[in-house]
């Protein structure tokens, strides 16, 4: 009995001695992996880079955080540890996290109509902030990039008819479904969130808000977030962070919105991000949409999108192979930047190999 008690005390002492790791100005370095599992991963992620045809897997960066420590980092092409890399649609998940900070201040509720904060949405009075977060505005949006440039809403928004005021361009779309009833991935929905944030926090705080609310508290020093001509952040596409800095957001998410001893992001906000959208139908997209994050969840009897990764895996994903995977059960955050111009790169393949190389060994 006494022995048992002292064992518990020792375990508790041991636990405090192994306090959580958090990045300071730099990430602390954890145990470095090596061996055949790592080689198998590198063979997949860093094949010879084809800059002539731009075919195949073209990784710019791979970075792995385990238990709050940097355990792997490698760069290729022109990208270095100091490159604020274009994240494309990872920006959407970042905007959701920035919005979560305003949510934590009690400035809005998920079921608030978007028009409350963004009057041009009076044309679509039924759309709520939750609907936008689910990519379920019901607006008739076309999300093709290169392959259907004439019909693409996103190309028109970024480069031609919409680039000066992306939210207004989105709000001008007709409805194809009732708000909140159907999933259709839309960069326009994400930019409506950005426009709504302007009045949620007020125009005076807005230009600095991503930095004051998210980047600075996490120690992120070199974030860039491009805007349209109205000053609205292009939440769909144009945030730039180093791989090391993006991983800080991953760690915040892996630890349910807590940063050291502060609950920066409300737990119920993270829970919403990680809850599958109820009206999503299997195979509508590559992964299951939550609140502007992608989930590895089985829905309607369909298998998990990434069968070789744990079911609690969630991710922020962007065009041309940008990805950040968060695996709370394995204490892992994986950032992968790329310049993939074809569909060679597979999330599940990377996750499978990364888990073999980096997942905690189960203690006997």
């Amino acid at each position, binding site marked *: 009995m006494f022995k048992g008690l002292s064992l518990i005390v020792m375990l508790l002492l041991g636990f405090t001695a192994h306090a959580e790791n958090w990045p300071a100005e730099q990430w602390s370095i954890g145990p470095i992996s090596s061996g055949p599992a790592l080689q198998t991963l590198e063979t997949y992620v860093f094949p010879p880079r084809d800059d002539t045809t731009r075919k195949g897997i073209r990784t710019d960066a791979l970075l792995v955080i385990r238990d709050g420590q940097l355990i792997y980092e490698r760069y290729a092409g022109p990208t270095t540890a100091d*490159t604020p890399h*274009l994240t494309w649609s990872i920006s959407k998940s970042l905007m959701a996290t920035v919005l979560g900070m305003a949510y934590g201040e009690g400035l809005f509720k998920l079921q608030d109509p978007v028009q409350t904060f963004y009057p041009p949405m009076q044309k679509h009075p039924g759309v709520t902030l939750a609907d936008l977060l689910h990519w379920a505005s019901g607006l008739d949006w076309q999300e093709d990039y290169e392959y259907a440039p*004439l019909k693409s809403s996103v*190309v028109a928004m970024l*480069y031609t008819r919409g680039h000066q005021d992306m939210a207004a361009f989105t709000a001008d779309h007709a409805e194809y479904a009732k708000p909140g009833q159907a999933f259709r991935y839309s960069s326009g929905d994400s930019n409506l969130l950005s426009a709504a944030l302007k009045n949620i926090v007020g125009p005076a705080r807005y230009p600095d808000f991503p930095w004051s609310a998210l980047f600075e508290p996490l120690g992120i020093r070199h974030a860039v977030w491009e805007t349209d001509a109205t000053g609205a952040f292009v939440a769909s596409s144009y945030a*730039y962070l180093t791989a090391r800095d993006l991983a800080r957001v991953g760690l915040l998410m892996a630890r349910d919105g807590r940063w050291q001893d502060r609950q920066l992001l409300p737990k119920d906000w993270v829970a919403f991000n990680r809850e599958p959208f109820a009206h999503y139908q299997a195979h509508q997209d590559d992964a299951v949409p939550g609140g502007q994050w992608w989930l590895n969840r089985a829905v309607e009897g369909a298998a998990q999108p990434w069968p070789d990764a744990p079911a609690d895996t969630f991710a922020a994903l962007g065009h041309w192979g940008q990805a950040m995977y968060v695996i709370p059960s394995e204490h892992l955050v994986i950032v992968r930047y790329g310049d993939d111009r074809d569909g060679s790169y597979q999330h599940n393949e990377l996750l499978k190999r990364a888990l073999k190389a980096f997942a905690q060994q189960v203690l006997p």
Partner: protein
Amino acid sequence: MNRRGFVRRRPFSTLLLMLLIALLGWVWQERVALWAFPDIISAYTAKEYCSCRYVMNNEAGYCHRYVKQWLPTSRFVDDAANKRVTVSGMGRSNSAQWISERQGCRLNP
């Protein structure tokens, strides 16, 4: 001369006429998108080159390859002193301007 007669005597002209009408209808329906279409290549190239060069701080040679698409561009000016990139293609011209450390690049109106 009735309509049937015309169709029988001129089957190919009728077909061509119908195709032309369908084409014109489609052009009218898509007029906004069609008018904007030629801007895509120059606007895309100017914006993404500007960000590649002045936000991600990559080398000029790399950024040229990075923004290359299947549509050609005709004129390319990278005004490094002002961090302003102007590109022409398909008869249109667009420019992007670096704004600040935090705001990166933006397409000019």
